[in-house]
């Protein structure tokens, strides 16, 4: 069934009139975190205002197809290629990455990069946020990922356990529409409720996955004195598959299709197109527009788009946020804007792990712990590529269906970083631009055309195997987001400045990953073509060997949660320690990024936080009792969950 976006909802809220409303909650950001919170608060009858930085058009099928057209006709097929460049709400772009030389930051892109390591990490500032371009993998975090400090002496412990989050993982898997089978996803301590099934059945492994599995399944690996076996395992994915009739005690599950203001029927089931990133052509892949459309069906949920938060205002006596000042631009590329304010009982920053601290720091709110913007995390990606001895049908299926997850956890994490491995159905696309580069080479160097060109292309790409190692990066206070008035964007907002490097812990994981890739290729009889270019912007040397390191767009850590206000920015409910009516939500709250793509965990954390928000609203909007002495009571007690 399609998801109806209420016609006119993107523009129905008058920004001037909204300034006079005291909303129950003001949410900054219309991505997955903001959409989920808006939908739950709205469903509970709370009034909500969403401020969205991106252009404010209703989400329609036609608008989505404009993204597709832009992608199809773009020369560069990078993550942002479908999305229009909006000067007033700029986005980082992978193609802006450059080698960074000491003392000379790269100011080319929206994010000012201090280095020393450059990154191509991105996020998307349109309605629906980065879930527009995400790939859709939804692994849960491992139980041990919540306790890496205690268990391995690395990173930080969470104030939550896997069991605390598990019910919200269930709910997040519903909200995002995850296809997976419990028997495939129960490993390394990940446990599911008895009788739990995912909303939809697991998506099949690609032919390429199965070719790899034929030789890799059972491959012994000894690490840190422990022998284990590798296996190719399907990834859980937020894309529509076959609904599981056993879901929800036999109630089944109805997949959510495309979003539009008018009745459409697309997005039913994944067709195996190979461009999940940067855009699913048929909306079988979840994007937060699906949740946002439902949220906006509530008359209590308002949205002002083209609204870029500029400053968080705080009452310095109470620490409470009084309003968010934002710049409401007239046209995506015009210079005109109006300064507006948004007032609420609660404020929720759901921008992302770069934009949340950027806004706080630009507002002069460094947090009493001094940790605002610190402990920036992402995944470090190492790619290894080879040619298989026989045709393996590469480029069939979605971008990625299977991987090797056996080294996501274990005692070795006290010494080196863990990782998950993706088997890429898009061949050497990420590493070397296949199939476009193959095409150009066949034409320019090979002089091929017609039938011979077509066959040549098939011969070249259908044996390609690319493994992507998604390697954990532990929290490190010097990896951080800062601001500087010297760097502002078109609207006068301070741009994020990123300082980033990888610790030896991660580099040991990188070096091990490369060695393992050689062993895997040897076992497959594959010809290793991996060569790391010393001129590559993300070239990093460790132990005398150089590697190309790429970003993962899995932003985390910049407003870390914890049990102690001195060592964390938010509590387990993502509620700011300093500003008790402010929630900073999303990846920034995560103390470890470990080896999970972050969206599912972000969704679960936000679903959990909505309970705290509702409880806080209920307690704070209760009539204030006057005591015998005439003094008002203290603010209500913390909400315990």
């Amino acid at each position, binding site marked *: 069934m*399609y998801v109806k976006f209420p*016609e006119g909802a993107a523009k129905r809220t008058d920004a001037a009139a909204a300034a006079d409303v005291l909303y129950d909650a003001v949410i900054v950001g219309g991505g997955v975190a903001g959409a989920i919170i808006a939908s739950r608060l709205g469903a509970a009858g709370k009034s909500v205002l969403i401020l969205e930085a991106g252009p404010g058009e209703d989400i*329609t099928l036609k608008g989505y197809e404009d993204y597709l057209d832009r992608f199809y006709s773009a020369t560069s097929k990078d993550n942002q290629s479908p999305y229009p460049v909006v000067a007033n709400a700029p986005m980082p772009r992978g193609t802006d990455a450059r080698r960074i030389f000491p003392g000379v930051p790269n100011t080319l892109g929206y994010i000012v990069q201090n280095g020393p390591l450059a990154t191509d990490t991105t996020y998307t500032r349109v309605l629906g946020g980065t879930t527009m371009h995400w790939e859709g993998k939804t692994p849960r975090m491992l139980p041990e990922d919540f306790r890496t400090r205690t268990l391995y002496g690395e990173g930080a412990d969470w104030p939550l356990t896997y069991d605390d989050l598990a019910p919200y993982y269930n709910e997040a898997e519903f909200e995002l529409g995850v296809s997976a089978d419990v028997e495939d996803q129960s490993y390394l301590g990940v446990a599911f409720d008895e009788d739990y099934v995912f909303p939809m059945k697991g998506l099949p492994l690609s032919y390429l996955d199965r070719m790899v599995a034929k030789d890799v399944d059972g491959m012994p690996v000894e690490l840190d004195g422990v022998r284990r076996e590798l296996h190719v395992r399907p990834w859980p994915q937020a894309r529509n598959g*076959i*609904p599981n009739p056993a879901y929800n005690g036999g109630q089944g599950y109805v997949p959510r299709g495309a979003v539009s203001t008018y*009745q459409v029927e697309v997005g*039913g*089931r994944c067709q*195996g197109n190979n461009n999940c990133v940067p855009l699913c052509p048929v909306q079988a892949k979840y994007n937060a527009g699906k949740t946002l459309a439902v949220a906006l069906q509530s008359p209590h949920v308002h949205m002002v788009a083209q609204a870029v938060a500029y400053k968080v205002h705080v009452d310095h006596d109470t620490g409470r946020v009084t309003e968010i000042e934002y710049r409401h631009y007239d046209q995506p590329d015009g210079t005109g804007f109006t300064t507006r304010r948004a007032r609420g009982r609660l404020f929720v920053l759901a921008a992302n792990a770069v934009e949340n601290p950027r806004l706080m720091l630009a507002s002069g709110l460094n947090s009493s712990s001094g940790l605002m913007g610190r402990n920036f995390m992402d995944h470090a990606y190492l790619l290894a590529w080879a040619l298989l001895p026989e045709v393996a049908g590469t480029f069939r299926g979605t971008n990625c269906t299977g991987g090797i997850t056996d080294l996501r956890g274990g005692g070795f994490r006290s010494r080196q970083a863990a990782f998950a491995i993706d088997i890429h159905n898009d061949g050497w696309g990420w590493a070397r631009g296949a199939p476009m580069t193959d095409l150009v080479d066949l034409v320019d160097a090979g002089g091929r055309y017609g039938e011979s060109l077509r066959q040549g292309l098939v011969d070249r790409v259908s044996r390609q195997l690319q493994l992507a190692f998604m390697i954990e990066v532990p929290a490190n206070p010097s990896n951080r987001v800062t601001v500087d008035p010297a760097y502002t964007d078109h609207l006068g907002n301070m741009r994020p400045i990123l300082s980033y490097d990888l610790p030896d812990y991660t580099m040991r994981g990188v070096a091990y990953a490369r060695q393992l890739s050689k062993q895997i290729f040897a076992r497959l009889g594959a010809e290793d073509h991996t060569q790391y270019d010393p001129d590559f912007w993300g070239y990093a040397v460790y132990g005398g060997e150089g590697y190309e390191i790429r970003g993962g767009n899995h932003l985390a850590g910049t407003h870390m949660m914890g049990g102690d206000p001195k060592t964390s920015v938010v509590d387990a409910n993502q509620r700011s320690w300093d500003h008790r009516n402010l929630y900073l939500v999303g990846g920034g709250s995560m103390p470890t990024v470990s080896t999970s793509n972050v969206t599912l965990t972000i969704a679960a954390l936000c679903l959990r936080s909505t309970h705290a928000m509702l409880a806080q609203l209920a307690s704070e909007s209760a009539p204030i009792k006057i005591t015998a002495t005439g003094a008002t009571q203290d603010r209500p007690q913390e909400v315990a969950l």
Partner: protein
Amino acid sequence: MTGSTIDNRHDLIEYLHRAMVLEHATIPPYLTAYYSIHPTTNSDAAHIIRVVAVEEMLHLTLAANVLNAIGGKPRLTRHGFVPSYPTYLPDGERDFTVDLRPFSHRAVETFCKIERPAMAPRGSARLLPVSDLARPSLVTSPVDEGLRFYSIGEFYAEIIEGLETVAAKEPDLFRGDPARQVGPEHFYSGGGSAIRVTDLASARRALRFIADQGEGFDHGIHDEDGELAHYYRFRQLQLGRYYQVDDDPEHPTGPELGIDWKAVYDVKVSARLSDYPVDSELAAVARDFNADYWEFLGLLDDAFNGEPSLLQEAIWHMFRLRDGINRLVRNPLPGSDGLHAAPTFEMPVGVESTPDVSLTAGGAVEAVTR
């Protein structure tokens, strides 16, 4: 007034074969119009046609489920299953013919006629002698060619009533192997999912669903689930606006549609292989397409005869069909004054002609002379 034409299981099987022929017959015209639209243009129109085409595929599947439930054997590769276009609708309607046309006002007009709602003039008089009709009818009875239904919806109502009658007489009517049923895990589209048919109640549900989704039956423009009936989907192309719930059928109030009637490959109407220059590359592509389509019908035969999970394979088959049509419609057809090539859907392909007796009685499509 005429009594029921369905007396036994055999009659029901004939009716359900005809239902499958009917549901399928609309798909080639919809696909031709859909793929004639220039890529990336006419999103509104393309999606409306696409949805209806996909839902006809669901209807075909539901009819197969009912047929299977009573022990019948669906057969899409029988002679005459695919009509020769232009054709009268498989069921005897005589006031218009269905062509394979590019997207155009005329094509939409035909689509509205195919899907138009009609109600019996008298409550109980569903089936009327041909001579008794003031206007042409849509559907003939497969067991008595002299009798015609007033609408497709009533054709299905007749089957439902027949199922009730026969089930009362034959307790083992629903004797089909449940493993032959196509369930929601094998097929779903946005507009509903496959209903497994194992008894009278589920059969009734499946057939009512087809009728409702097509013409709106008696629920107005939207069905109970808020889904717009096919007729009204097409009306949106004529009226220029989307419907919203509770709209007057003549005055939709939703967002405007943007239609560019010129962003269309002007394909030859109801092209035949004989229109293609002999031995041309294009003729080979047209023949290949027909062979692929025939193979696809064979796959559906297998899926509807005990291997429902084969429908997963149908996905890449359909991509191949899409590619085949695209190869045709983008090329001018030599000797046709600039008109473009189009798939001809001439079936069967590469098999001996051995007319199937039960089909000529129950499902053959009547061609019109060109």
